[in-house]
């Protein structure tokens, strides 16, 4: 799903697509939905990014990586962190969700299903290894604040689930 209020200059998209999330290298920051705008103003690209979680340590690195990628393509830039509108997992693109799955992170479910999985002990999160839904919540917080830790009871694989944030 692409948010309506996203403004990115067409010719900057290929450059920004090559910048990846430092914690999930297979995932482009564009598919993550953290780039809210990138516009060329008086020869300088003004980029606005929004954090997934307030304390996400990746944001500083993402800002630096964006500036570096633009520089390599001949653009000076200013990267700004904005909080409005707040990031939501709805902004992860379909391609992004597929990249997460391949990387071993189950993509976010819709809010109701997310609640059932995290609070109701319902077995609905698909194992990223064998696709079974016979999976169990191990911890509400996984390797980072945005993920919960699950375990597959069929193939025994432990995996992260990207929590729904709306």
């Amino acid at each position, binding site marked *: 799903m692409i948010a309506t209020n996203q403004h990115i200059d067409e010719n900057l998209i290929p450059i920004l697509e090559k910048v990846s999330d430092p914690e999930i290298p297979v995932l482009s920051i564009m598919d993550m939905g953290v780039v809210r705008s990138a516009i060329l103003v008086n020869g300088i690209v003004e980029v606005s990014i929004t954090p997934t979680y*307030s*304390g996400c340590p990746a944001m500083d690195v993402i800002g630096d990586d964006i500036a570096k990628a633009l520089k390599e393509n001949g653009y000076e830039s200013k990267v700004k962190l904005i909080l*409005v509108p707040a990031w939501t997992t709805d902004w992860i693109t379909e391609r992004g969700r597929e990249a997460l799955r391949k990387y071993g992170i189950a993509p976010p479910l819709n809010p109701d299903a997310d609640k059932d999985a995290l609070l109701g002990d319902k077995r609905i999160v698909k194992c990223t290894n064998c696709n079974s839904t016979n999976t169990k919540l*191990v911890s509400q917080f996984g390797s980072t*604040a945005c993920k919960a830790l699950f375990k597959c009871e069929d193939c025994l694989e432990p995996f992260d689930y990207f929590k729904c944030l709306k």
Partner: protein
Amino acid sequence: MKKTNLYNYILELADNCLIAGQRLGELCGHGPSLETDIACTNISLDLFGQTRSYFQYAADIKGEDATEDSIAFLRFEREYKNVLLVEQPNRDFAYTLARQYLFDVYHLLLLEKLQFSQDLTLSAIAKKSIKEVSYHVRFTGDWIKRLGDGTEESHAKMQEAIDGLWTYTNELFEVTEEAKTLAEEGIAVDVSTLKKTYYEKVTALLTEATLTIPESKYFQKGGKAGIHTEHMGYLLADMQYMQRAYPNMKW
């Protein structure tokens, strides 16, 4: 609106996040199990992120050479405005969770109001934080139930933690002069209005966890005015060490 009022009010909001986060962060590598260790430090990280947003805003307002780091690390004890509750030490896991839970319930109620602040930055920070704090209160609330309604020993420890921390809960609802003025302008939250809902929510969960609500009517306060318990100095010594030993150091 007076600039110093807003600055002080932001510190009042942020210092609670900073100090609660610092206490949880102390568990990094020391949690009772890997999962809980990671959960506590993730909550800590969320709180530090929120603190940064507040302090960046405060630094803008203060001007001169103020930065988020100077505000976080270079104040003296009497200049911190956090409530006494959040500075209480991690005596044991029950204590840590009880302290965090008693703060989380308040924190979420506060943010749900703050998101409608006339101040757009505070409103934005609140909207962002609500999503995170909803997970915090869920996590700590679950653990209060699990330990309260668990074994004889876990029940006793959780009851002791609640009994020990209860005296610090009332301060959450003290309205400072700054907040009072700013609340009239639609910028700050009048926290006294959250009190009834807070105690209802906490009472319901503690009762579900088979715990007894303390009856003591004696409450301690002082943190919002900068008068802290004896634990605060040690916490700051640890937290400020690097900036004091190596001024202006950066990672």
